[in-house]
């Protein structure tokens, strides 16, 4: 019963999203152009640099394009389905969150299904980029690739969700978390763009086991590209663990969210 209601709500949520997008067509096109330019400049910058310097720790532009596409796909998947989690601090500040609490559905579910102007445009762009990068990088596409890559995307999206939810939960105490979110996003961009073997050992360990950005793209990409020197003493197959890491990380964030929810006392509206 509860599941059926949730499925209905979810369907309505996407209906409203699509209708909103159709209503504000020009604005949608402009934001799509922005997404395009955003990823375009990033890839162009990589191309220019690696045109001058043939390789970075054994990774050439073909490898880096695949690395980027891997991250882009997970990130787009997260943005498409969970970006509304990032609006929770605003709901808290405006007092709208209190309304979520007295409704009969799970507050997190309500937050995820707050309609906006979400459309799977970034996801399509990411998919196209990923296919292009896969062909360009010459990765062997076998059964293992076909089975694991989608799971890795989902795992990567869950890692992103873990960060997003964790930061949003901090808003229960601090109300405003825009700066924190901006910093984490900046770091995510930097840390997922290059092979982590360029960083010092401490940073590598941090990226692998504390803030698992390395599982979003570095480890999986290194596995499929047959890189042997990972920069850490781990077997290459660790890249296939991304789905597990994603579930663990998102679950940890969820526990933190439940904890924050229990402490939450409103902001005094």
């Amino acid at each position, binding site marked *: 019963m509860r599941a059926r209601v949730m499925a209905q709500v979810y369907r309505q949520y996407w209906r409203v999203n699509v209708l909103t997008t159709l209503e504000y067509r020009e604005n949608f096109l402009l934001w799509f152009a922005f997404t395009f330019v955003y990823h375009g400049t990033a890839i162009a910058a990589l191309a220019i640099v690696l045109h001058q310097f043939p390789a970075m720790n054994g990774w050439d532009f073909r490898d880096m394009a695949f690395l980027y596409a891997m991250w882009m796909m997970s990130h787009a998947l997260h943005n498409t389905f969970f970006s509304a989690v990032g609006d929770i601090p605003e709901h808290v500040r405006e007092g709208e969150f209190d309304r979520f609490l007295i409704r009969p559905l799970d507050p997190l579910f309500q937050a995820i299904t707050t309609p906006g102007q979400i459309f799977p445009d970034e996801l399509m762009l990411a998919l196209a980029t990923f296919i292009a990068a896969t062909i360009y990088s010459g990765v062997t596409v076998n059964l293992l690739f076909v089975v694991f890559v989608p799971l890795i995307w989902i795992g990567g999206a869950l890692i992103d969700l873990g960060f997003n939810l964790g930061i949003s939960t901090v808003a229960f105490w601090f109300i405003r978390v825009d700066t924190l979110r901006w910093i984490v996003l900046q770091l995510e961009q930097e840390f997922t763009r290059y092979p982590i073997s360029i960083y*010092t050992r401490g940073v590598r360990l941090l990226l692998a086991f504390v803030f698992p950005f390395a599982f979003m793209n570095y480890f999986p990409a290194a596995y499929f590209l047959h890189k042997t020197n990972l920069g850490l003493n781990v077997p290459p197959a660790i890249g296939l663990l991304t789905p597990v890491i994603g579930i663990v990380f998102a679950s940890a964030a969820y526990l933190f969210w439940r904890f924050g929810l229990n402490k939450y006392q409103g902001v005094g509206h």
Partner: protein
Amino acid sequence: MVRVFLLRTVWTALYAHNAAPANLPLHAIITYSTVALLMGLVLDIDQTRLLHDKLHDGSIATDFMKPINVPLYFFSDGTGEVLFHATLIVPSLILALVLVHLDVPDPGALAVFFVSFLLGYLVGLCLNFILNCTAFWTLEISAVQLIVTWVTDLLGGQLVPLVFFPAALQPVLAFLPFAAMFSTPLLIYVGRIPPSGWAAALGVQFAWFVILAAVSIVMWRAGARRVVVQGG
């Protein structure tokens, strides 16, 4: 600050396994990117955002009734904000000098760098003002503005020095207003533009400033008239 370190790591990794290209040695490129980052803290501010906001909520109408020069009011508001941000950069700058061992050019080049930076800032100011003026017609410009910021960062040489771009593109890029914002002051700073080239480089920047300032004035007049027609 963290980003300064990341920049250094990335460029160090690139230089470690490859021959230094385009006669920009490692310490020069680190200096270049660090100064670029610090410049970005000032240049990426949208100084004339207030205009856009006021068009959005309509309060621009009452500003027109006040006995003030409205564009100048926006500029002074923006300048105040920029100066505030500039003071925030000072501690980062000192840290960067100490930790990353930035190259410091001789006083002459440093002085020309600041003149060039100021011109670059003015070019950026006009570009932003023109963008915000388009809000007279379209009201919503956030996406366009972000696009312009990213394009500026790339084509202006903030992300990657323009000398690394394909040779065919370089002459074109050098004459775009984006290069006038970032690349020119930076190349003066790291000494890639020799003293004999200073006058020409500053001339191009100044030319862009004059052109964009003229466009700003035209846009502003046209926009202001439109508000009057609508009755505010």
